[in-house]
């Protein structure tokens, strides 16, 4: 206890690291929310690049923190907290985190057949879309015609997943070079 009656919270270096990456993801989330989208729920998902990078660099636990903080804080700042958009975003994030977790521990089990950033990103994009779709169908619009959209949405997820995967590969490469070169903070 300090004189003001507050308990000092001790933070670990990992907390700072998560905060930094989450801040980056939130910034990208907000910038991206300003871009118009042709179909609701169809976005490039650049914030997922950060999640994938954190997964590859620091592991699944950190990725969960960054992704969930991104959804929570991002929605508070954009103003969609607890709206259908938020529900879609959260369900997508949870689904993609589960898929990433499965992929991550599978890669540890079988390193020679493990996934790289591109595989993670593609996996995350597909799971994100499926999670969103499940909520959209079971909660928001329970109409069988919605399934006609699924193939198109999954094709979009494939394209976006590959694009953000390539971005993630390039980004992780740079980050690792900096860390190895000793210029990273």
């Amino acid at each position, binding site marked *: 206890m300090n004189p003001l009656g507050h308990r000092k919270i001790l933070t670990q270096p990992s907390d700072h690291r998560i905060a930094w990456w989450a801040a980056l993801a939130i910034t990208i989330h907000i910038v991206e929310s300003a871009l118009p989208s042709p179909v609701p729920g169809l976005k490039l998902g650049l914030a997922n690049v950060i999640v994938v990078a954190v997964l590859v660099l620091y592991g699944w636990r950190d990725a969960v923190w960054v992704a969930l903080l991104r959804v929570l804080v991002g929605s508070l700042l954009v103003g969609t907290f607890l709206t259908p958009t938020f529900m879609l975003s959260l369900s997508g994030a949870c689904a993609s985190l589960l898929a990433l977790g499965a992929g991550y521990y599978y890669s540890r089990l079988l390193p020679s057949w*493990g*996934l790289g950033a591109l595989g993670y990103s593609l996996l995350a994009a597909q799971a994100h879309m499926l999670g969103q779709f499940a909520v959209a169908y079971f909660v928001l619009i329970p109409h069988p015609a919605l399934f*006609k959209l699924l*193939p198109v949405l999954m094709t979009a997820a*494939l394209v976006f997943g590959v694009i953000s995967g390539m971005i993630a590969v390039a980004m992780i490469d740079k980050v690792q070079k900096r860390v190895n070169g000793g210029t990273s903070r």
Partner: protein
Amino acid sequence: MLRRGDYLVLLATLLLLPWLYLTFWGDQRAGEYAQILVGGEQLELVSLRQPQTLEVEGYLGLSLLEVLEGKIRFVASACQNKQCVHRRWISLGGEVVSCLPNRVSIAILGDEQRFDAINF
């Protein structure tokens, strides 16, 4: 740069997508049997799997029907305007083609019906 698992995920996705398109965009309503009616009376059920030609005696004369690869059509009919012939092939459950002057009609039977009801 790419690891083997990446190709695995990519392959799985590329296999998943055609399946999705076939499942949700494909037409699974193809009928198995055609019901042939003359003046409201059912003549016979014709399997669409067996290629054949049928001659049906209507109120004006003969109607010639052809079955081929799951489809059926009027080849010729003893009517004036040949609407039934111009309707060409039908294959989906619930589809109907009829020659009203000759009072011959064909309806495809299927699990799923394309239309709930048809008025003339």
